[in-house]
């Protein structure tokens, strides 16, 4: 005979203001099988939980229903309380009368009626709950880090330095990501490559890190602790086991006029190339689309120049299958396509450039060896206008969010320019200066006060060319009038957006993303580095725009999550898994096809003499993730899902 306890939480006024909790408690008290039905101000509080535990012991309850906030909030809390009171934690159900009732309805009477239905339905469900035990699954102690930018490197190094294996996958020929492109970094103005390249080298040489560059994640199967990942090794046409990175081939390559991606189109590269001088690994790849041999069938200059026979035009993509326990996604960002701002003339006027291009100009290793020169004529600009929020915080054309880093790097650009071009003038159009961060506001103040950056609060409406000069028309909202600034160069602080293939990639890994394609954290405040999928963690700008310190901090946080996961040999999982009734199973194997996890196997049923009687489905509890797709497929109703059994759901519906 069921003895159910019903605990109705006021949640302060959150529930009690709309739902008549006293009436609800009284009604539930009269419901068959309910042994105790009480209300209280905050059941999630310590005394609240204690009262639940006391009631479980005193009334010898066989199940409890907490009518309170969403199970997503406190299911775990009350399950734990159950366990402490000696009741199987899975004999606890939550009736969500806050998020889905008191908060969303205005009519008190109807809200109370709905709360009754919700609670009664949960009482009927919990009567049919079973004792469940968590499932233990083994953990593969090997992490996959996707992305070789600063976030990925940090995560990989932190995990590897703690003694765990890491596979680092980078889709470009070299590690480095965006940070390798930067000149100096705010707020310290230390050289980006000076701090980046040692980390790259350390990563490449680390005994616990397996580095896979020019590689992409092809598919991810499995689940936390037990992912099966397939990596596509794109063909470099250079045998990495032979190549020493001498660079002879690069020198000999006749296709020299290819726009360099690394230099954002400001520099040139060859068809066989390393993205930049400090590339790690320092081994070239052949860009098939630009290679003369691949286009015309003649050339092979690189092959001829290579004394080590490292060039192999026959090379094919290869696949590597990995067993992985945890995944860190650090796939970074890209900058928004500036074409959406036609009025700024990007692409039309060569001296309108992006902030990232400015970084390349300012970089000592860049195409101008660190001198700020106009792309059009190679002259030093005397006047530079910076336009902030060129895409960010602009719901009409760009993106609604703030890209977070532009205020700071624009201030940095103004400073670098001032340091490099003495007497040069800078104007910065801005909406707000957002400089929250250690040393950040001081930094922008320095730009204004020491390096004489002239900040104009307002937006730019148009950029045009007149007599070889760029005319920038904007508004100074503080003065309340339009201004036109004559400039030699205009730098756009373009928005940071997700990688072009971010959404598809999220689907490959099976994680959630927001409307833009940034990856969703499991909880913005409490689980900011976990994705919605267990065992997959998020680091860096793939989650939202971030600067280097934040990316690094988040990367280290993911490392600690991975290490926590790897600290155990086995993992405890929710016992919500499918089970099969072998007596009634007809062996049609529809479930095998329907299962997203290949968790269903064929099992032989034999009689005592060993004769095969039939084959039935067997659900591997380690692989089953508990979606229940097989259960609703099963025509003979042989499959069922623990925690959401047919009986439970039937009762739940019938209780409504």
């Amino acid at each position, binding site marked *: 005979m069921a003895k159910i306890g019903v605990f109705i939480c006021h949640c302060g006024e959150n529930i009690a203001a709309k739902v008549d909790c006293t009436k609800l408690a009284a009604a539930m008290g*009269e419901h068959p099988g309910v042994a105790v039905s009480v209300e209280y101000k905050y059941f999630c509080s310590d005394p609240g939980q204690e009262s639940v535990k006391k009631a479980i012991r005193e009334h010898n309850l066989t199940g409890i229903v907490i009518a309170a906030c969403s199970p997503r909030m406190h299911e775990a809390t009350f399950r734990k309380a159950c366990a402490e009171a000696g009741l199987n934690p899975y004999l606890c159900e939550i009736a969500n009368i806050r998020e889905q009732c008191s908060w969303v309805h205005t009519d008190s009477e109807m809200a109370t009626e709905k709360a009754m239905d919700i609670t009664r339905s949960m009482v009927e469900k919990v009567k049919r709950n079973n004792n469940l035990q968590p499932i233990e699954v083994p953990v593969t102690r090997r992490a996959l880090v996707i992305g070789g930018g600063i976030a990925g490197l940090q995560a990989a190094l932190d995990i590897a330095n703690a003694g765990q294996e890491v596979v680092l996958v980078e889709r470009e020929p070299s590690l480095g990501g965006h940070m390798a492109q930067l000149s100096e970094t705010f707020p310290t103005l230390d050289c980006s490559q000076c701090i980046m390249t040692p980390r790259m080298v350390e990563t490449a040489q680390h005994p616990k890190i397996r580095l896979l560059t020019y590689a992409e994640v092809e598919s991810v199967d499995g689940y936390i602790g037990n992912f099966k990942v397939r990596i596509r090794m794109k063909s470099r046409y250079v045998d990495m086991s032979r190549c020493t990175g001498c660079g002879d081939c690069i020198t000999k390559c006749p296709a020299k006029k290819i726009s360099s991606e690394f230099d954002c189109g400001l520099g040139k590269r060859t068809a066989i190339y390393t993205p930049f001088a400090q590339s790690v690994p320092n081994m070239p790849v052949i860009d098939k689309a630009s290679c003369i041999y691949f286009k015309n069938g003649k050339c092979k200059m690189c092959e001829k120049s290579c004394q080590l026979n490292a060039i192999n035009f026959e090379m094919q993509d290869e696949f590597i299958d990995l067993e992985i326990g945890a995944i860190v996604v650090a796939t970074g960002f890209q900058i928004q396509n500036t074409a959406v701002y036609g009025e700024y003339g990007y692409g039309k006027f060569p001296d309108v450039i992006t902030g990232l291009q400015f970084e390349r100009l300012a970089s000592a290793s860049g195409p101008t060896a660190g001198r700020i020169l106009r792309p059009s004529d190679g002259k030093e600009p005397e006047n530079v206008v910076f336009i902030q929020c060129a895409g960010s915080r602009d719901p009409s054309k760009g993106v609604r969010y703030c890209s977070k880093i532009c205020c700071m790097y624009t201030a940095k650009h103004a400073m670098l320019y001032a340091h490099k071009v003495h007497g040069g003038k800078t104007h910065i159009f801005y909406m707000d200066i957002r400089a929250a961060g250690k040393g950040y506001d001081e930094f922008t103040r320095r730009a204004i006060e020491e390096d004489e950056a002239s900040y104009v609060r307002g937006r730019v409406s148009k950029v045009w060319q007149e007599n070889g000069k760029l005319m920038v028309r904007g508004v100074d909202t503080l003065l309340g009038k339009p201004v036109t600034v004559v400039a030699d160069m205009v730098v756009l602080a373009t928005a940071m957006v997700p990688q072009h293939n971010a959404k598809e990639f999220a689907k490959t890994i099976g994680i959630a993303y927001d409307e833009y394609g940034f990856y969703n954290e499991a909880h913005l405040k409490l689980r900011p580095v976990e994705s919605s999928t267990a065992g997959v963690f998020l680091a860096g700008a793939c989650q939202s725009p971030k600067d280097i310190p934040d990316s690094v901090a988040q990367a280290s946080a993911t490392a600690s999550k991975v290490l926590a996961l790897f600290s155990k040999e086995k993992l405890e999982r929710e016992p919500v898994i499918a089970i099969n009734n072998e*007596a009634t199973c007809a062996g049609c194997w529809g479930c095998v096809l329907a299962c997203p996890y290949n968790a269903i196997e064929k099992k032989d049923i034999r009689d005592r003499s060993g004769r095969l009687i039939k084959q039935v489905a067997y659900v591997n509890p380690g692989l089953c993730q508990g979606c229940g797709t097989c259960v609703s497929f099963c025509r003979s109703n042989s499959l069922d899902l623990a925690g959401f059994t047919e009986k439970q759901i039937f009762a739940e519906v*019938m209780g409504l």
Partner: protein
Amino acid sequence: MTRILFSDKLDNCVAKWRSAGLAVIGPVQEEAISRYAAVEKGTDFDFGTVLPDRSLKELFFPQTEPMLRYTIKKNEIDTADFTPPQGKRIIFGARACDASGLEIDDPLFGWDYKDEFWFQRRNESVIVTIACTKADDFCMCTSLKLEPDSTKGADVLLRPIDKNKGWLVEELTDRGREAFALISEYLQESSEPALPTVVVPEKFNLDACVTWLKNPENFESKFWKEISMRCIGCASCTYLCPTCHCFDIQDEGDTYSGIRRKNWDSCSFALFTMHTSGHNPRSTQSARWRQRIMHKFNYFPGKFTVNSCSGCGRCSRQCPVDMGITETLQAISNL
């Protein structure tokens, strides 16, 4: 001299009976099937079919019948009984086999526990049968030692006269006389002869069959497997049978209130005898078919001294795989 009920007076009779508070029921041809159903006027009847598709049984023992309503309360369970429908009725134009079926089942429904649903209806129904003047290939009442004009289970027997003009009336019981007294004004004395009842050829030797069935050696005969190999295990034979009477009791509703019902069940179903353990004493279709035959011609008469078959032939007529009692008993006769 006997009294005659002329067809053209039927309308008046129906009106009379109805005004006297009797529900009038008779063979009706619906779009999809023929059955015994309520009629409001004389033209609603259809006496042309050999036999309605569905038997008379369902008017006394419906396919599903609510027995009680229950509500599980905190400390007790409230129940409220359903009472069988009250009200007298006259079933006009039943076939002799269907009426016999009712009488065959009477002892079954009354031997230990008196089934009030059955007997309430039995006591309130006047059964008027019409002797058959035609039969089809499946009719076999004579093989069961019954006749197309058997009076078993009937309160009044009517014998058709030529050209569908009407029927000679033979009142058999007080209940029948009472009902016909109501319409006596429409009955005419006449000497017109009744049409001859149809001759239904005997299809098997019942006594020989029964002897064979009673021989314990034949229980395990391979005959059963051979004869029932094509049986697909549906219940159309049992559900259309005028004497099959098995039922199941089911509680139906939500988790704390509902209705307890009496539903037809069938020995053809594998689940009929399935134990909770998974063991099924009648695990094969041949065992189930054997049970059906044994029950009708061995066990039932052993207890109630009458065969549980009135020879209507519906089992064979409707069988999706052309099986039936006739074929089986014929085969036994020929063994």
